[in-house]
């Protein structure tokens, strides 16, 4: 049985196309440990692909 890491780089679109999926998963998905997520505010690079998604995620994180 192959592992996910072996499989299909062709499934991964160009990095800029996958960025929206990366943001969605890392900032809104995954196991939540405490609800305390602290991120440095400096040098935030808001990507133009979906500002509403990033802003909503950051707002949620800043409020937790």
């Amino acid at each position, binding site marked *: *049985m*192959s*592992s*996910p*890491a*072996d*499989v*299909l780089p*062709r*499934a*991964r*679109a160009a*990095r800029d*196309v*996958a*960025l*929206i*999926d*990366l*943001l*969605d*998963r*890392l*900032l*809104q*998905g*995954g*196991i*939540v*440990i*405490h609800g*305390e*997520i*602290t*991120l*440095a*505010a*400096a*040098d*935030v*690079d808001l*990507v133009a692909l*979906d500002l509403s998604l990033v802003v909503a995620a*950051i707002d949620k*994180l800043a409020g937790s």
Partner: protein
Amino acid sequence: MSLLLYAIGDGVASAPRVRTGVGSRPLRSIGGSGLTALVSEHDVPPALDEDTLWTFERVVEAQMESGPVLPVRFGSLVSDVPALQRVLRERHRELTAQLDRIRGAAELSVRAVWSSAEADPAPGCTPHTGTAYLMARLGPQRRARALSERMRDALDDLARETRYRVPGRPDAPVSAAFLVGVDDVEMFVDRVESLRIDCAELICTGPWPAYSFVGARSSG
């Protein structure tokens, strides 16, 4: 000093698959209650930027080679090893059940976008089928729901679990995540690539760790 968490796996603490993570900090495996957490130590919280997020993602993906991993939401910090082990102990049953659920599987993302420049298939897309003609006459939300049903019909049978979001926005009508057995990933991608939906394009990315199927969104 805090510990940044990347992922949680089961079994004896196995060595990290890569040496460094965010900020080029060394990665460590911390064991407790039959679980293993992958961490790195930081003096300050991690910055939110594209390179950092990709670094984090690569660490979690690499760790999937050692077995099933629960990806942790980016930016999750614990104060020290005892605090981490307390989390593993208190949540052992839940985390073990989640690992069993995703074992041998990965997540694939499929996003639909309307193919017309105006992101509205009614004026900008010439329907080639009766179905497309009818869809063009529906409102945006109904068109998005119809689109999601097409995706379900074509793809759901290949997935253990699915998560659909149908915001109906002109630029993002449907977004879906699929938990797919690793042996079925290639077949799934082939099917997405061969799927033809009038006035819409499908963007497939992955395989990802199972972010959408663990944690707070696992029941969504």
